[in-house]
């Protein structure tokens, strides 16, 4: 990977240049929290804190219109109506700048689900194709970070086009994809020189801060073994408030709901985020709810990420270790601790 350098000043100019023909999402101070908003006048970039919301909306918005429709009455036969449908595929080209490696890696999970040999979700795939990711390597780690335990790390390039590493006076920039290589051809980038070695040192230091990684590799089977242990799940879920904040902030959660929102004879079909933490998530038309309690729902969330998903997709853990669900949980529910408890539970059972 070629390594280049961009100064702080040039970074701003580069963003301005990109903003001419892209929507450039950058992490900004948003009333005390950090969220991704389009780059523009008066927006203060925040690059030294992990964004509260991940950048998943760039490829999977919280609510999006899939199509619009209109009913027309047949003038000959008013009993009959016909319906006209217009699909609304996303058109804009976007750049996500300054996301953390863990947040970006979330897309690896979406890619497997929304765009594979059997299914191609045109809305997701189009956005994904038209969005470039310029990721920022971490220089420090939080108490909730565990990317290194789920196969990632603070300089992971899994779903990035360009990886920036903060160095003296600016960033060392490495292209990950072809598209990233093109980006680095812009005049704002200089030759990397000794900045590249500096970047390597930064990456190494951050990785060291995380310490040794816990091994989650036997989690799928251990979680499965705990599947019918209601007591275990009730204990793990006792503090959960069933709110769903964890899933909405999670870079890998991709569940959605589809609703027709009608006004008179016109309307739109809206896809919006859903959350397995909500009672309505599996509520059936009959009134029966197979996941009627919060323990059953939390079991789904943890198992989906650490058991069902790895089982279906070549051991890939559907959690990027960003810690958002832990950090923003009003009750400090800790997904790491739950999986570890399931692993330990297995060990206890075996030793008996």
């Amino acid at each position, binding site marked *: 990977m070629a390594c280049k350098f961009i100064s702080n000043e040039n970074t701003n100019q580069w963003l301005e240049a990109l903003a001419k023909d892209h929507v450039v999402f950058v992490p900004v101070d*948003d*009333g*005390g*929290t950090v*969220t991704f908003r389009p780059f523009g006048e008066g927006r203060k970039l925040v690059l*030294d*804190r*992990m964004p*509260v*919301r991940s950048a998943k909306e760039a490829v999977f918005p*919280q*609510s999006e219109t899939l199509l619009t429709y209109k009913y027309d009455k047949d003038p000959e036969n008013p009993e009959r109506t016909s319906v006209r449908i217009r699909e609304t595929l996303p058109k804009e080209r976007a750049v996500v700048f300054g996301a953390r490696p863990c947040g970006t890696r979330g897309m690896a999970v979406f890619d497997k689900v929304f765009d594979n040999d059997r299914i191609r979700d045109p809305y997701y795939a189009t956005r994904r194709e038209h969005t470039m990711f310029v990721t920022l390597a971490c220089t*420090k*780690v*939080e*108490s*909730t*970070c565990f990317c290194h335990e789920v196969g990632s790390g603070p300089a992971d390039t899994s779903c990035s086009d360009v990886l920036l590493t903060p160095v003296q006076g600016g960033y060392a920039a490495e292209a990950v994809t072809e598209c990233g290589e093109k980006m680095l051809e812009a005049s704002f980038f200089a030759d990397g020189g000794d900045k590249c070695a500096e970047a390597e040192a930064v990456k190494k230091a951050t990785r060291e801060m995380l310490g040794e990684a816990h091994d989650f590799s036997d989690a799928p089977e251990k979680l499965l073994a705990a599947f019918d242990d209601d007591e275990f799940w009730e*204990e793990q879920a*006792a*503090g959960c*408030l*069933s*709110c*769903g*904040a964890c899933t*909405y*902030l999670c870079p890998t959660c991709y569940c959605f*709901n589809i*609703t027709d*929102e009608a006004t008179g004879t016109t309307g739109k079909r*809206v896809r*919006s985020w859903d*959350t397995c933490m*909500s*009672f*309505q998530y599996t509520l059936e038309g009959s009134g029966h709810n197979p996941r009627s309690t*919060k323990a059953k729902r939390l079991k789904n969330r943890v198992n989906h990420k650490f058991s069902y998903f790895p089982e279906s997709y070549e051991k890939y853990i559907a959690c990027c270790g960003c*810690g958002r669900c*832990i*950090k*923003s949980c*009003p*009750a*400090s*529910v*800790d997904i790491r*601790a739950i999986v570890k408890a399931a692993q330990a539970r297995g060990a206890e059972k075996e030793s008996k």
Partner: protein
Amino acid sequence: MQALAELKEQIRQALPELDVVIGWQQGYDALHTSPLFIRSEEDLEKLVVNEFCVVNPASYLREMRGGKKVGLVLKGCDSRSVIQLVQEDLLKLEDLTIFGFGCNGVLNHAKLQARFGDIGYIKSIENSGASVTIEVDENKETVPFSELCADKCLTCSYPNTLQCTHFAGEESSKEAESEQDKALEEFEKLSMEERFSFWQDQMRRCIRCYACRNACPMCVCKDHCLANSRETKWLSEEVDVQNNFMFQLIHVMHLTGRCVECGECERACPMDIPIMLLRRKMAGVVRDVFAYNAGTNAEETPPLMCFKVEEPTIEERH
């Protein structure tokens, strides 16, 4: 802490008669506690009582209905939510055993965050009562407690658990620093247009996760909340300012005259939206109109649950 040892002893003695006692335990780092569900003496050892015990244990009571014998370790503010639930006939006082203590206030994570950049990088924290010394990254600072504590603690006049079965340690002599919430006072100086644009800006950030609702001890319908109802659909699935604000208005209207100002809604909000402004406003209106302070006296009937031909505090005939 003196109170902690006494609390543990009181709980230990009561535990055989109870299904569960809800308190707090140390969380994943120095700044966080998480709720503790004590069922055995082993669990009891994990109990902590300190300025990070922010979760209101009463928020879990909804799930405990139906004759379960529940013990609760409650701060003064938390105890108001229990009293209010009893007043509303949603709980029976005889099913509850309340372990009280004197509270000196709790710290607010959003304020810590605003002050120290990102508290996720916390190295250490010490609280002397009057001030807090915190080390985040390379930055070590000592800040007065009152600048970092929850807003509710600044106006709190009930630091000692109300109506408790057992009380541990010394009573807190903590007094309210001001009667009025400063943020609300400032907000009310704004013009209507400014207030409206303030809320538009705030509501743009809302992710409709409903943490504010689910953390609220007084939101008792939760799973059947009308914000999620499909028939009739009150809110669109489109997440926009209008619908987000509509949800907040639903919440605040359902809590008017019931909200005990425990602040859990705002604390739970991952987007740090200052929704207590709305709650405090309405609680103030209820105090003015009905001379009623929610959750302070189990013998009272909440004003919206009774009918009086003439409200003693409202002058309607001249």
